């Protein structure tokens, strides 16, 4: 059973308004049957300091990733996780988190790998809910374990690997990192420590649109018109384009993936989660330094660079 969409005027402008809910909607539908509210934050202890009553926590780092492979959990792991959180295959899942829903969007993207049908973001995330003085609690919810089927992960529609990106060169690429990471002045975003990329720069032809530009001051998504101005007019995306977005490890670009897919309605957007930590270190893979996107390199891709398919 899925719940009716939030009929907010602002959302109706978006391509898929059913992917967002407002704080008003959540406050009104809080106890609706079939709804599970999930918090996913950058700070792993933030949920414990207080969360929306009844919400469960998903830690993107320890719960969504495979312990040894640089990959996500498999279908059985996902089914176990969902069961433990009280989420059924037909649950309406509303995700929210800190920092303009950056990690909540990442968690939503991972849900999409498993084809969970009804998963939405709380527009404005945790900060907006708190700023409005709405209830928070430190009580852990009582979770009734659910029965979730084992669904095989289907990466192809929304996830790009290194080899896919090499083949993609020449089609639109969006680099969502900060300006200094894009030009190669640094390999991590300001105020964040180095995370081991050998070279700084960007993927040839990638256009720079830092992820946070999609968010307004209060953490909500910008309006349809504002987003169109950024991604279509400025970055040059056109109807029917196939797009790949990337950042440093694929979390910031999940946010942009959400914007392009659900708010602007691009039908073929993939997130390259290997992102700069992989590309910036990969042997025989070309990069571009400086503020210009650069050209499609003539002599790549090489066979040896076609890995991870």
């Amino acid at each position: 059973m899925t719940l009716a969409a939030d009929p907010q005027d602002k959302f109706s402008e978006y391509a898929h308004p059913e992917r967002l809910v407002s704080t008003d909607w959540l406050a009104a539908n809080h106890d609706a049957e079939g709804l599970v509210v999930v918090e996913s934050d950058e700070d792993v202890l933030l949920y414990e300091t207080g969360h929306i009553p009844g919400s469960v926590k998903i830690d993107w780092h320890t719960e969504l990733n495979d312990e040894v492979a640089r990959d996500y959990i498999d279908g059985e792991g996902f089914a176990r996780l969902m069961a433990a959180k009280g989420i059924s295959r037909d649950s309406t899942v509303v995700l929210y988190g800190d920092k303009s829903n950056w990690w909540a969007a990442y968690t939503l993207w991972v849900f999409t790998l498993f084809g969970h049908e009804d998963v939405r973001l709380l527009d404005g995330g945790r900060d907006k809910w708190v700023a409005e003085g709405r209830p928070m609690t430190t009580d852990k919810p009582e979770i009734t374990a659910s029965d979730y089927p084992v669904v095989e992960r289907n990466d192809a529609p929304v996830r790009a690997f290194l080899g896919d990106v090499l083949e993609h060169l020449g089609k639109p690429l969006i680099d969502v990192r900060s300006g200094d990471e894009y030009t190669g002045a640094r390999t991590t975003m300001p105020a964040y420590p180095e995370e081991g990329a050998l070279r700084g720069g960007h993927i040839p032809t990638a256009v720079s649109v830092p992820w946070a530009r999609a968010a307004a001051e209060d953490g909500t998504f910008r309006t349809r018109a504002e987003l169109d101005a950024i991604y279509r007019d400025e970055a040059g995306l056109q109807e029917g384009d196939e797009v790949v977005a990337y950042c440093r490890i694929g979390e910031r670009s999940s946010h942009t993936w959400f914007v392009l897919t659900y708010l602007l309605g691009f039908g073929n957007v993939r997130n390259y989660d290997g992102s700069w930590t992989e590309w910036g270190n990969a042997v025989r893979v070309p990069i571009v330094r400086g503020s210009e996107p650069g050209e499609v390199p003539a002599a790549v891709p090489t066979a040896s660079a076609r890995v991870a398919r």
Partner: protein
Amino acid sequence: MTGGAVPAKLAEIIDDFQDLTEPDRLQLLLDFSRELPDLPERYGDHPELLEQVVECQSPLFLTMEIGDEPERPVHLFFSAPPEAPTTRGFAGVLLEGLDGLPAEEVLAVPDDVPDRLGLTRAITPLRMRGMAAMLGRIKRKIREAQ
């Protein structure tokens, strides 16, 4: 710099963490976060006197007061927002473990102390480095004050 003695108070905190299961370690870190005291007025009203530890994923500011020879006791002052409990927790551990010790003892604290809390699986490497950066910053400021 590494391989020195862990001061008794800090060693006790490390033991406390090590005695717990992983989820309980996070709970203990949360307790440290809650107990991090507010800045005294002389700093609370003057944020420009504090220095940001930019390596932390969330805003963390610190300042220190270093006493006179020969003991040169070190006093630590931290400020981090409530939305950053992990960062606050690390600051709380360093405050409780190091505040008031002589400068030489703080300089001798092994650089890998953050790793000894047993949190590396539950907390991303990036955050662990944030705590290591706090310790590094404290040591650097002591050396600069010499």
